[in-house]
């Protein structure tokens, strides 16, 4: 087990940069092979405790990383990056992942220039009024998708359409919000954030 003695866990949602400490043993850098580096996709990720833990199953990590990158970084068309990050942040706020929320709230602020609105989501929770129909619709859809059993239904589609999203943008909301139900569960259960 990793020593967790030096962890200083955050107790509120924040846009500050946080660290993350694993509860079980990541692979040591010295033990990484070509198969592991293929799994890491970006060689620099070998410096991250989180990715050196996930690389214990390199094939799953590689496929997961490539899924993630296309859902969030492929902005040739579809939903603006800021709103994909908003979906990620809202999902993380609702599931309770302080680490994931910090990263993606920060990205949402960077791409939207609406830091105060993003902070309101973190401070007040997913019921906060973020000031426009489009952002509220993205948050509501993300929250409905994160519920178990899943609460996402025709009303969410109607709300997204009324806010001006087309079908391809709605698919980006579904992908981005759904992906964070994957990410949140890993970050929350394999280790913890530290200030």
């Amino acid at each position: 087990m990793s020593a967790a003695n030096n962890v200083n866990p955050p107790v509120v949602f924040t846009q500050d940069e946080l660290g993350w400490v694993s509860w079980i043993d990541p692979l040591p850098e010295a033990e990484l092979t070509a198969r592991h580096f293929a799994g890491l996709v970006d060689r620099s990720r070998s410096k991250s405790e989180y990715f050196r833990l996930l690389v214990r199953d390199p094939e799953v990590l590689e496929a997961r990383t490539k899924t993630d990158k296309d859902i969030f970084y492929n902005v040739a068309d579809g939903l603006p990056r800021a709103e994909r990050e908003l979906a990620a942040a809202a999902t993380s706020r609702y599931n309770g992942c302080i680490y994931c929320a910090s990263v993606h709230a920060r990205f949402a602020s960077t791409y939207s220039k609406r830091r105060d609105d993003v902070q309101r989501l973190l401070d007040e929770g997913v019921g906060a009024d973020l000031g426009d129909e489009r952002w509220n619709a993205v948050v509501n859809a993300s929250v409905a998708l994160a519920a178990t059993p899943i609460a996402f239904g025709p009303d969410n589609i109607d709300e997204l359409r009324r806010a001006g999203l087309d079908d391809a943008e709605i698919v980006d909301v579904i992908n981005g919000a759904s992906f964070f139900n994957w990410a949140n569960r890993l970050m929350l259960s394999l280790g913890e954030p530290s200030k």
Partner: protein
Amino acid sequence: MATKDIIDTLAGIEPGSSLDAIRARRLQARDNAQKSYLSLFEPIDAGDVSLVERAAVALFVIGLHREPTMAGFYRAKLAATANGARLVEAVDVEIARGETSGPYGAFPDGPLSVENEAGLIYRVSAERKPELGARLAAAFEHAHLLVFRPRDAAAADMKALLAAGWSNTGIVTFSQLVAFLSFQVRVVTGLRVLGASLGSANAAGAG
């Protein structure tokens, strides 16, 4: 890819439909969601998590989401896996015992504590523990936590899995499995709802 795209199949997306065209704009995501599925259910190395353990956990996780079409798919998968058919009934009984609504759980002590929400702490029934075995019993209890109250997760939960015979690598694969299924069931449900809103050209056999 040899296997038909599993998300398209479960969401009822027909080739040539408008949702098929939209999905094609995120081809890397579509292909790698499929590769994630294949890496989890047809791994090159099943040494740390057996195929029957993967299939049993999958049925349990999807059953807890109360998505009948997908649960049917994973029930058939477990039944078709070596040594799996004997577990189907026990898993279905445990799903019924574990049903609740989430997410709930506790935040770190502090200002967020007002948002703490108590709920079911699921434990496998004593009668079915011998049938499932120590590893699967521990896995179901942890999977239930991941599905409904992920913010409750603590270092002690890792110790419980290690004590039940899970390796570090096995815990990573098993956690990825539960987390991936949490993604897959939402993409499928979301696309099915969107498809239904577009009419019969997209929504085939949604249930």
